[in-house]
């Protein structure tokens, strides 16, 4: 599928991390069960150096599975992941794995359960330093721990604290400090702000943008909140039920979404700074994709669905500067216009 990579997916060599046809199925039920849950199907992704890419979708869209595949928590059913053009499949030795984990670090969603409550928050940072940077001596490790804490906006004194002595926002910063300690090139951040108060979120998002500037890391920012994706990301990748549905430069996609699902996500953003006459009355949810047949997985919720949608699975195809996986949008880009479909549905 390299041919259809188009403008939005970086060619080999330029990308820091690249995934092609990434697929992960889970067996449901017992060992002999034949029912398969398709969490991710034929998913392509590329992240360049110093780039923030947002992966957006609802619960159950497969976005966390993608993060876990990239972090090697799961291995893919099919497809390949390359980091600096090395296939992850070929990394087998402990040394290779240590190298990969030193390059790609992860930050988790729930800052209230991601830390061991009996250790001070310096524990995780120190451990990462011992494991991944054996060249540092005790003193240097302490200095480095202070440095990473300061780069995420925490004071060095905070290192002595226990997790329960910190607020959620501070704990999430510790998560980033822990990730930074290994000097990664890429941070996989799985919903890092969704458990935080809204007033604290902006600070963490700003910190992520700073890390890119100062530490030169790339970030895969996984979220269900497309407005926050707009705030930090250069590029967005929208996922629905395991499929990539739309991807492109953030402003292109968000100002003029072409996939009906992207439009639904946008219409769900409540912004008191603007008055909307009506909002999407959609109450559907992503389907559980168990042994799917051909066809677009969004068609049951889609106001534009045509017959072809039930027969042929749409693949991401270039439309202007972006990729869209929608038969209707590709055939007639003007038909799928900004949230018009959702508004008319509300009225009916």
């Amino acid at each position, binding site marked *: 599928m390299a041919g259809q990579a188009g403008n939005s997916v970086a060619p080999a060599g330029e990308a820091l991390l690249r995934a092609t046809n990434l697929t992960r199925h889970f067996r449901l039920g017992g060992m002999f069960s034949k029912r398969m849950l398709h969490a991710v199907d034929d998913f392509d992704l590329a992240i360049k150096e110093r780039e923030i890419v947002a992966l957006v979708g*609802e619960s159950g869209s497969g976005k966390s599975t993608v993060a876990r595949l990239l972090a090697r928590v799961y291995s893919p059913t099919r497809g390949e992941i390359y980091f600096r053009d090395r296939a992850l499949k070929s990394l087998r030795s402990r040394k290779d794995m240590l190298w990969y984990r030193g390059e790609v670090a992860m930050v988790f969603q729930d800052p209230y359960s991601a830390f061991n409550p009996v250790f001070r928050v310096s524990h995780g940072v120190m451990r990462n330093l011992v494991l991944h940077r054996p060249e540092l001596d005790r003193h240097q490790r302490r200095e480095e721990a202070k440095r990473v804490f300061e780069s995420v906006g925490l004071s060095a004194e905070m290192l002595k604290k226990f997790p329960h002595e910190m607020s959620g926002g501070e704990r999430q910063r510790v998560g980033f400090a822990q990730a930074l300690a290994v000097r990664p090139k890429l941070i996989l951040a799985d919903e890092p702000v969704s458990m935080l108060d*809204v*007033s604290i979120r*902006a600070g963490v998002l*700003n910190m992520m943008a700073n890390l890119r500037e100062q530490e030169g890391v790339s970030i895969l920012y996984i979220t*269900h909140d497309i407005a926050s994706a707009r705030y930090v990301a250069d590029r967005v990748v929208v996922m629905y039920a395991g499929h990539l549905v739309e991807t492109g430069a953030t402003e292109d996609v968000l100002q003029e979404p072409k996939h009906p699902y992207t439009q639904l996500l946008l219409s769900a953003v409540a912004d008191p700074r603007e008055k909307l006459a009506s909002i999407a009355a959609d109450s559907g949810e992503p389907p559980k994709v168990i042994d799917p047949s051909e066809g677009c997985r969004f068609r049951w919720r889609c106001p534009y669905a045509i017959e072809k949608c039930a027969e042929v699975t749409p693949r991401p195809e270039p439309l202007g500067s972006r990729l869209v996986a929608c038969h209707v949008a590709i055939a007639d880009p003007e038909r799928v216009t900004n949230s018009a479909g959702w508004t008319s549905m509300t009225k009916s």
Partner: protein
Amino acid sequence: MAEPLLEVSDLMVDYLADRATVRAVNHVSFSVQPGEFLGIVGESGCGKSTLLFAVAQLLSPPGEISGGKVTFRGNDMVRLSADALRHMRWRDYSVVMQSAMNSLNPMKSIGAQFKDTLQAHGKSSAQEIRARSAEVLSLVGIDAAHLQSYPHQLSGGMRQRAMIAMALLFTPQLVIMDEPTSALDVVAQQSLMSKVKDLQQRLGFAVVFVTHDMSVVSRYSDRVMVMYAGQVAEAAGTDAIFERPLHPYSRGLMDSFPSIRGPRRSLSGIPGSPPNLARPPSGCRFHPRCPEVMATCPTTEPELYNVRGARVRCLLYAEEADHAG
């Protein structure tokens, strides 16, 4: 104006700890008219959930109401006996909890849990129970077949809606909601909110809705009350507070979520974290985080001033309130 459905005056809630007493709710007053939608907004730890628990008489030790009145339909709830309250719960008012997803019993089907509630309030005919359960479930847009389902068979959004259905079993006059949407993603959140609003308008109950995300209530509430450190920081009509927030804290909350359209601008959020209520800051409780702090703020405690149709606790408006008063 008609008699308010719920009137909270000068309510105070203390948590008794070993060394100190933490006053989580400090002289809070507000009222809710029949059929009104009130949004209560504030950060974690500002006392908003404690306030709801106090209103619903669900506080358990070490929390206790140390002063003030909660008048609901003419009854002072603080003085009512446990038995009297038991008769009112579900029937006259109901509460949808924050973790409604987890407050369903995992061992019982949805229908059995509805049945428990209905039976506790004297509905005993099996046919009536089945009909009413199916009716409320379809109100929230869930197929009645799910009465047989167990909570784990439903998605997060559906469980949340099932909880709301349960709260509506007796069509109470007041439904209290404690962050029912915060565990949901954006699309589910909006569809739940529009469902709640639709039901509220159709059935005419009043809603007290607590959230940390101001944008959630912006489209649905009639009035908004912003809480900070156990006190009311600002209370006004929804349009007024979103168009002209008076308190610097309200402005900070407004400036915390990114916009989806228009130019990308940088967000400041609100620096720092909410104060420890065991040792609240002197003077105005918001002064250590306030971008507009003045010399008098650390020493003078602001009152709740009535200005421009709003109530606001900020010294910036002290003079204006004097002139008006």
